[in-house]
């Protein structure tokens, strides 16, 4: 009972609860058929949302107005960079991953440069940057699908007892992110800036450096995600990151991170990502038309967040 109570206080519980309910509804519909497969599929697909979601979470936590809208374009470009560098050869996998990481980090750094040097609001800075990145991607990748090396493709599909290895690695990564958030100077500083940037500055937080690091981190995670996506979906592609514009924001906020800044939540990102994939699974399984599918997606999201309720206001 006490456990239930203390759990109910955690904002991330609701996203997991939502995921569970949606999953139960689906297997009730299929009569239990495919229950395990669904979880496997959900885990493999949620990974990609979780990785960018964590980056977006740190950015959003920096306070109102902070958001990285360049992630989709970033993912697209990084996927092309990774595939071109790997050039279908297994020996170049690590180099390709590093190239994607560097490409993403560079994009993040440029984003912050625009925000800082030109004082452009982050939402517009990252949006503008994303247009430019798209163009670079189109002229660099020519919209062609470049295939990953077989070893890398197999790695992204590798499962142990039905659990995708990539998901396990991502769980480790998110545990690291959670520790960084709550127990490292970096995370504390992000939280402080998100609550009150001026007070953070006056409390000795190096505001400029932390914001720079955060945008760069978000960019770098987008880069890695691009490479992994290209592996899993068997090819780089300009559009490969498109859905992560909304999805990366959605998992952050559904997962219980405060959009007002200063309050973040890592487990919630996982819960929300699983919830979104399982929701798609459920609606695809029910076989409803696109219109009804979208309608139900929306209503269920609103329903879950309403059930979860908002945070209690302080004083």
């Amino acid at each position: 009972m006490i456990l239930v109570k203390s759990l109910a206080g955690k904002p991330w519980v609701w996203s997991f609860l939502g995921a569970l309910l949606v999953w139960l509804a689906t297997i009730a519909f299929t009569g239990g058929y495919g229950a395990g497969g669904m979880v496997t599929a959900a885990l493999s697909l949620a990974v990609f949302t979780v990785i960018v979601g964590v980056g977006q979470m740190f950015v959003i936590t920096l306070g109102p107005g902070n958001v990285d809208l360049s992630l989709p374009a970033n993912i697209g470009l990084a996927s092309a960079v990774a595939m071109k560098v790997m050039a279908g050869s297994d020996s170049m996998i690590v180099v390709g991953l590093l190239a994607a990481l560097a490409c993403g980090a560079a994009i993040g750094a440029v984003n912050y440069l625009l925000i800082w040097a030109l004082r452009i609001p982050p939402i517009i800075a990252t949006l503008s940057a994303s247009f430019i990145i798209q163009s670079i991607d189109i002229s660099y990748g020519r919209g062609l699908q470049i295939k990953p090396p077989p070893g890398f493709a197999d790695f992204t599909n590798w499962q142990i007892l039905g659990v995708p290895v990539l998901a396990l690695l991502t769980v480790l990564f998110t545990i690291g992110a959670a520790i960084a958030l709550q127990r490292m100077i970096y995370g504390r500083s992000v939280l402080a800036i998100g609550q009150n940037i001026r007070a953070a500055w006056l409390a000795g937080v190096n505001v400029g450096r932390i914001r720079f690091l955060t945008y760069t981190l978000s960019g770098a995670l987008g880069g890695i995600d691009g490479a992994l996506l290209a592996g899993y979906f068997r090819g780089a592609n300009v559009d490969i990151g498109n859905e992560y514009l909304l999805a990366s924001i959605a998992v952050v906020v559904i997962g219980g991170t405060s959009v007002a800044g200063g309050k973040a939540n890592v487990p919630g990102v996982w819960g929300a990502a699983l919830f979104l994939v399982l929701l798609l699974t459920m609606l695809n399984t029910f076989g409803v038309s696109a219109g009804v599918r979208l309608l139900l997606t929306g209503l269920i999201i609103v329903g879950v967040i309403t059930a979860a309720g908002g945070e209690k206001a302080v004083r």
Partner: protein
Amino acid sequence: DTSGKKIAFSNNYAGNSWRQAMLDSYGIVTKKAVADKIVGAADIFTTADKEVPTQAAQVQNLILQGYDAIVINAASPDALNGAIKQACDAGIVVVSFDGTVTEPCAYRVVVDFKDMGKQEVEQMAKFQPKGGNLLEIRGLAGTSIDDAIHAGILEGVAAHPEFKIVGSVTGDWDQTTAQKAVATILPSLPDVVGIVDQGGDGYGAAQAFAAAGKPRPTIIMGNRQDELKWWKEQKDKDGYKTWSASIAPGVSSLAFWVAQQVLDGRKDIPHDLLVPYLAFTQDDFEAALPKIKEGGVATHEYTQEDALAAIKANIK
């Protein structure tokens, strides 16, 4: 004489291999036409993200720029009508293709998408004579092309009662989205014998089946290089059979020639020109494969003569 005429190309998206091939074909043909002094200028204008209002604004700006003709791949068949009408009223020739427009004053280079959908089931019947369950992958919801292909598929299934569509997902003509959608429905899907789709999503579906360790069904393909290559690999392995169809990106060049001909004063060109979609069968796809760029799409560019022949075929 059209040597002083300026033709603009209004495009709303450039981010996938089909659109890149479309732009390539158009570029190749028009560069030559400009060099040969057949037309004065042929400029390309691209907007982002398939946005209707942005493209409408673009058309209006092209009117202001004083172009004589606009070739357009429209983001919406109806919602651009206002802008297209304004262009016509300003005396500009408008030729649409792929994403065609319904405004009567414009020309349409049309592919019979409904027939393509129907053919998919017809072909499927050849490979799976016993019939069985089908999975349908649909395109971008709310668009006319998706609607037409889907209608054709339904018609085909009606004519072949041995088939039953047991699942339908939305793939947005995008490999990533398609693969994701198929992956989520697969665990709960009964065994299927075939997949009918809209092109560009066959490879993603194949990957999803492989990842889930499910037996490979007959997947109708969409003329992309990776799809044909996968087909060949499967064929070499165990004689796998399928069929592939899609609109050829090079239709853009045909649309260009239509515009040029209308500017040249031809009055006999019908406003609706039907051109065949590009299909590959078990017999001819291997010959086409080497000609397609790695990661690209099968295409066909129209020379002026091809175009004249195609126009002629449409004059009854």
